[in-house]
């Protein structure tokens, strides 16, 4: 066991997989010598050499597309895109090729590949550095989309992603990269993809969140507890395939669901969760499912961002409204 931040846990997972499997390679803009702008891959190039951990030229479509080529020819690439907002130049490769090569070739080729990038707001960043595009990726057939919320999960989920024979989008909550420290096993372990986790059991309302919003929800729950509200908190962990069962079970118990996420509300993961609530637990709903999400706007620059970002008291406010409905 070691105390790790999310950054360290990801680094550790990469380290273990690089060590164990020579077919794993890690690259992206500044991912080699410098260890990435967030230092997530720090030290790995020194340990595994420039052929296995390296800097790529500045072109996201090529980073992802070469990764696909490698995956088809015996490697297990873990590519890094520098920020959420810079994944879009690679969108065509992701949606038109990475996600489909297995289907296109009717199973002749597999695509064991991970596309990692930091996502989300709350760090006073420039434009394009604060985005939460999980709904875009979750809507694309052939991909899996994973978002950890803690060092332990970051490690266990990433190991599963690298071992997956399907391509995975692995989104890292940059806001809490170093904010949470946790005891994490030094050994290799994995957490199954596609399963949500009930973090806290409760009876009055189900709160579903993921990534950096888990911590905000936990803060809101302190307020809820004071107000006598028992919250069941579910961490999605995997956005696609989404764990309908765990969510439905919880709603059947609580009758209420509040969804917390940073992305713009319309056409979001929040919408899908509301659909699931209806499809799987319609007769149990005692109040309308509620989305507590970003506005349908760009994440504002630092001075405006606090209004956009979802705060614990806003979550509590909506929990209370839903429970009182």
């Amino acid at each position, binding site marked *: 066991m070691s105390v790790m931040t999310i950054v360290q846990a990801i680094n550790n997972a990469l380290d273990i997989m690089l060590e164990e499997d020579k077919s794993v*390679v890690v690259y992206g803009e500044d991912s080699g010598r410098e260890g990435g702008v967030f230092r997530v891959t720090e030290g790995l190039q020194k340990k595994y050499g420039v*052929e296995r951990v390296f800097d*790529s*030229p500045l*072109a996201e*479509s*090529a980073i992802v*597309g*070469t*990764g*696909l*080529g*490698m*995956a*088809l*020819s*015996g*490697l297990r*690439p873990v590519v890094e895109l520098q920020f959420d907002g810079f994944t879009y130049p690679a969108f*065509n*490769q992701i949606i*038109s*090729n990475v996600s489909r*090569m*297995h*289907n*296109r*070739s*009717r*199973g*002749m*080729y*597999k695509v064991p590949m991970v596309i990692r990038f930091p996502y989300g707001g709350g760090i006073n960043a420039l434009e394009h550095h604060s985005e939460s595009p999980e709904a875009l990726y979750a809507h694309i*057939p*052939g991909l*899996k989309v994973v978002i950890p919320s803690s060092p332990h999960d970051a490690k266990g989920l990433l190991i599963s992603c690298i071992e*997956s*024979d*399907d391509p995975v989008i692995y989104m890292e909550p940059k806001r809490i990269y170093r904010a949470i420290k946790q005891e994490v096993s030094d050994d290799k372990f994995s957490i199954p*993809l*596609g399963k949500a986790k009930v973090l806290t059991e409760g009876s009055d309302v189900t709160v579903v969140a993921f990534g950096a919003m888990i911590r905000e929800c936990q803060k809101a729950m302190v307020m809820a507890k004071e107000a006598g509200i028992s919250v069941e908190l579910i961490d999605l962990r995997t956005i*696609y*395939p*989404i764990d*309908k069962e765990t969510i439905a079970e919880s709603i059947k118990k609580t009758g209420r669901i509040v969804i917390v996420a940073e992305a713009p509300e319309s056409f979001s993961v929040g919408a899908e969760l509301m659909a699931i609530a209806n499809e799987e637990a319609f007769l149990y709903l005692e109040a309308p499912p509620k989305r507590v999400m970003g506005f349908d706007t760009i994440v504002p620059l630092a001075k405006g961002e606090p209004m956009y970002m979802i705060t614990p008291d806003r979550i509590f406010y909506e929990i209370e409204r839903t429970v009182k409905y």
Partner: protein
Amino acid sequence: MDNIKTIEKIAYKQPAVIFNEFDPLKDEILRIIDNDGHVINEELFPELDDETVIKAYKSMLFARVADDMAVSFQRQGRMYTYPPINGQEAIQIAAGLIIREDDWLVPAFREMAIMLAKGVTLREIFLYYMGNEQGSNFSKAKHVLPICVPIASQLIHATGIGYSINYQKKDEVVFPYVGDGGTSEGDFSEALNFAGVWKVPVIFTIQNNQYAISFPVSGQTRSVNLAVKAVAFGLPGIKVDGNDFFAMYVAYKQAFDHARAGKGPVLIEALTYRKGAHTTSDDPSKYRTKEEEMEWDKTDPLQRLKKYIVRKGIWKEDEEKLIEEYKLEVEKQFTEAENFTPYPLEDVFQFMYVDTPDVLNIQKEDYKLYQNWKESRK
């Protein structure tokens, strides 16, 4: 001031001899036989025995027959949209002579002839154009990627495969294809740039067939030609007469030796003409003249090679009979494709993932319920 250039640069015409002799900057072109099959460049004429040349001609002929028949099958409504390769056979059959079983073919979508050469069956190709993805699950061919429709995106995959080859210390070579239109896509440039930086064993071929659907290559770019684009990425580039089988063979041979020797990627612009329509849904008379087509007809790769072998006196076959044989073979493969097992519901779902999520199974089961309901109403 350039003291930090730590990585060695490939000068754009450093390597293999041939790339020195034909300077794309001066718009020079490698050509070995003329339209009448006369050898105009003895010096570069390749060492190929007659048998191989005849075999190559026959492969070109087979491809042409299969292609023509594909177009007519489509007209009969027995196949869906198909992109003819008519006119582009020399490029692909020359490559077919060079490419080995474990080399990689990364096609765009107009590479039927080299796919055949690489071991893909006609049955598979037909199956694909009949609208069944099983046609892209090649039963015999190794290291062939499925057809890639999003223009130029496949070039990047080729560069990635090249990285694997170097990493795994193998000696395979990668053969990606793209059209003249595809050179305008950002992915074209990114693929060549990464290939240069990583020094991968990749032979990029541009099949410059003069058109991107209705749009002539003259409108795609102001560069003097397409081979010259290699300069931007430090690659050797060469412009070759793509309707000249020998020129294509020589270019591929040198490129292959270059790539296998670890000297990195090259770019070949193969000048050719798309004799047919863009696809069976296209009507070229909307955008080009009969005169132009006739002008290019004179350069037809089959006629040219035929004239050469006839003049050399090595052609012993009865071409009519050969064509009849080929037609029967094509017919046979087509029928096999037509008799392929019907497309099961499972195939819609089964290959999206290796590890299929529940949601797909649920959708499939739901669909079956609907099917049952439908049955029950009959």
